[in-house]
Every structure is written in C-alpha cells, then in structure tokens.
C-alpha cells in the first residue's frame, strides 16, 4: 500500500542515522571548544594586555557601569590609611604616600558582588591598585551593602586608599573604574 507522498512522487528524506548524529555532535563539540578558547583568549587579552585605554570624564561627572553609577568626590594625600597588623594607623612604605579617594556609588541593578576595585592613574599612565587595610569606611572590593540589604537608587559613600611614590602624588589624573573592557576604562576626576 503506497502513501500519499509516494504516490505524489516525492522522495522520502532519509532519516539521520546514529553515525551522522555522532558526527554532528562531534562537530558541535569542536566548534564549542574553539569558541571557548577564543572567549578565554580575547577576555584575557582585553583585561591583561597593556596598554589600557582611558576615557577621561569631566571633573565630577558620573561614571556608569552595567549595574551602578559612581562619582569621585575628592582625592587627598594623607599620612595614614587603614590599620596595620597591630591595629594602628598604617604608614606608607618608605618613599611613598597615601592618596585616598572619596567616592560614592548608586547601585541600579542587584548584583551578587559589586566590584569597586578602582585603580589610581597618573598623568604618565602609571596605575596603582587600591590597598585594603581593613579601614572601617572602606569595604574592600565591594563598596555597596550585600544584595539582601542594598537599596537600589540609594547613594553610598566609600573610600579607597592607594600607595604611590611621593614624587608621583602631584601627577595624579584620577581613578579608573574597573571594567572587563580594558580598552575603555572610564577615568573619574574630582570636581574642580
């Protein structure tokens, strides 16, 4: 007994056998592995390979990340920052000074861990990472309350300390907002 399709003269499409299916899955796996490698490689290069590129914002202008807004309020030198191993105000290393950035953050989207590890940038493109010394007003890498306690739209203040050579302290350009795109760091500058 012939089917309508056969009667109409239409050839039946052969079903994919297990061998062809395996070949397709194998090809898919290879493509995925290549994509994973490219993603890792490009991500690594964009975050590690110098030189970084900075987009200088106007003095006091807001910087916007994917989930929050940041503003730099001030940049000041100070002889002590945080606490040392004995709980005393920490002195900088010999020949260095502390530069403390006062910032504020306004979370717009809930995020498990809001990254706030700014880098301090000099006019000759040197940069320094912030130093976490357990200062009560500096909350380490995360500058906003936990996701359970954060209020979106509320502005929180925080400080970050940087250690720089004393002769570089007069050449500070601003602080750069951390980003996964090293080609477009937003550079915050204090109000004029």
């Amino acid at each position, binding site marked *: 007994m012939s089917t309508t399709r056969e009667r109409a003269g239409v050839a039946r499409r052969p079903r994919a056998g297990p061998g062809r299916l395996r070949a397709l899955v194998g090809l898919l796996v290879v493509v995925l592995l290549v994509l994973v490698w490219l993603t*890792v*490689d490009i991500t*690594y*290069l964009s975050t*590690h*390979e*110098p*030189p970084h590129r900075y987009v200088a914002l106007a003095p006091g202008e807001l910087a916007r990340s994917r989930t929050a807004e940041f503003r730099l309020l001030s940049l000041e030198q100070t002889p002590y920052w945080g606490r040392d191993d004995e709980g005393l105000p920490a002195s900088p*290393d*010999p*020949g*260095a000074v502390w530069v403390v950035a006062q910032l504020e953050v306004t979370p717009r989207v809930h995020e498990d861990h809001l990254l706030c590890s700014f880098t301090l940038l000099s006019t*000759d*493109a*040197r*940069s*320094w*990472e912030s130093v976490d010394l357990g200062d009560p007003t500096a909350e380490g890498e995360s500058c906003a309350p936990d996701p359970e306690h954060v209020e979106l739209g509320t502005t929180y203040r925080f400080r970050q300390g940087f*250690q*720089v*050579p*004393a*002769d*570089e302290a007069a050449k500070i350009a601003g602080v750069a907002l951390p980003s996964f795109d090293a080609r477009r760091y937003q550079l915050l500058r204090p109000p004029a």
Partner: protein
Amino acid sequence: MSAPVQTRAGRGWRTVARSRVLAAAVSVLLVAVAMIAYRLSEPRLRYDLSTAQLDQPVAFGSGRVVVSEVRTARALHERDEVTTSVGLFVVVRVTVQATGRDKVAVADSQLQAAGRTYTPVETTTGLVSAPPGFQSSDDIAFEVDPGGLAGATLTVWDGGFVTRYEQRVQAPLGITSANAERWAAAGRESEVTLTSQPDTRALP
C-alpha cells in the same frame, strides 16, 4: 529511462571514502603533519633568556631584576616556625624594580645545579612583585643536594595563564666546583631567618 550505470571503480571509491579506518588514518596523518610543522616553526627556546650577574640589575619586563645575597643554611626560620633540611637550603634575594609604566613581577623561579632542577620550598612564595615606581625584595629558598651545588644557577620569570612574550633571567650564583664544598660546609653551620613580608619601597 534507464538508471545511471555505476562503474566498479566508482563503487570502490565510495566504499573507500566511507571507510572509518581511512578517516582515522587521515586524521592521524593531519595531526602528525601539524605537529611537525609546529615543531619546525617554533624557535629553539620559547622565551628570551638573558643572563644576570649577582648584584647587577638586568632589564626585565618594563623594569629590572637584581639577584643578590646568596646564602646556604641547614634551617630556615620564619616567624615562629623552623624548617630543617636533611640536605641544604640555598636562599637567594630577588629584587624587582618597576622603573617603567607597568608593574614588574617574578612569579616563578627554579634553581638548577648538577643536572637537577629545584623548585622553591613552600615556606617562600617565590612571588616578588612591585607596582610602578616601587621596588620589592624577597627571599626565595630551595632545598638542594649538598653534594651537587657546583654551577648552581637561578632562573626567574613572570609566568602567566596566557603568555604572548616571556622573558627569563638566569643568574649563576657564584658556586663553582672549586668552592662548592666550602658553601656546603658553611651551610651546615648556618640558619637563615626569612623576612615575614617583602621589603617594598619607592624607587629613589
């Protein structure tokens, strides 16, 4: 209309083309060709190797590195802990100076002597890093065979997950076959106190 005539040669080729054995053989062949091409195209060394004299700075990354203060000891003191060796410890001071725009780091090191390669002991991290405008010094210790000290050479480099360019610095430690026994004898009588944290300061 008659069906197309399929020759014996055509059927044979199709059978061969569908052969799994042939596919596997071609795959192995292609991988072998790729490996041979890769081996032929890569340089003899996969990194630049420069030699440093003790106490003399040598260009490293965007700054410099200095190898100094070679000591031998039978025990290492760090804070309240004492580590004793059945052989001998060789302790070396490594200083990185970030004179350029970027930070400079020694993230990995090894000591080679008498055909053996030693990695740093766990009590020393082997990591020395300085941000721009700073220098940082730390001790790196290796546990070695006291009978094979001659020709001891330290190699340091900044390893990375993905490295586009790698530079290694090799520093002979001044231990020769003529004085190796004196170094070993001195070490059997000595103990070294390691610094609890790297000595970091702004560059002058």
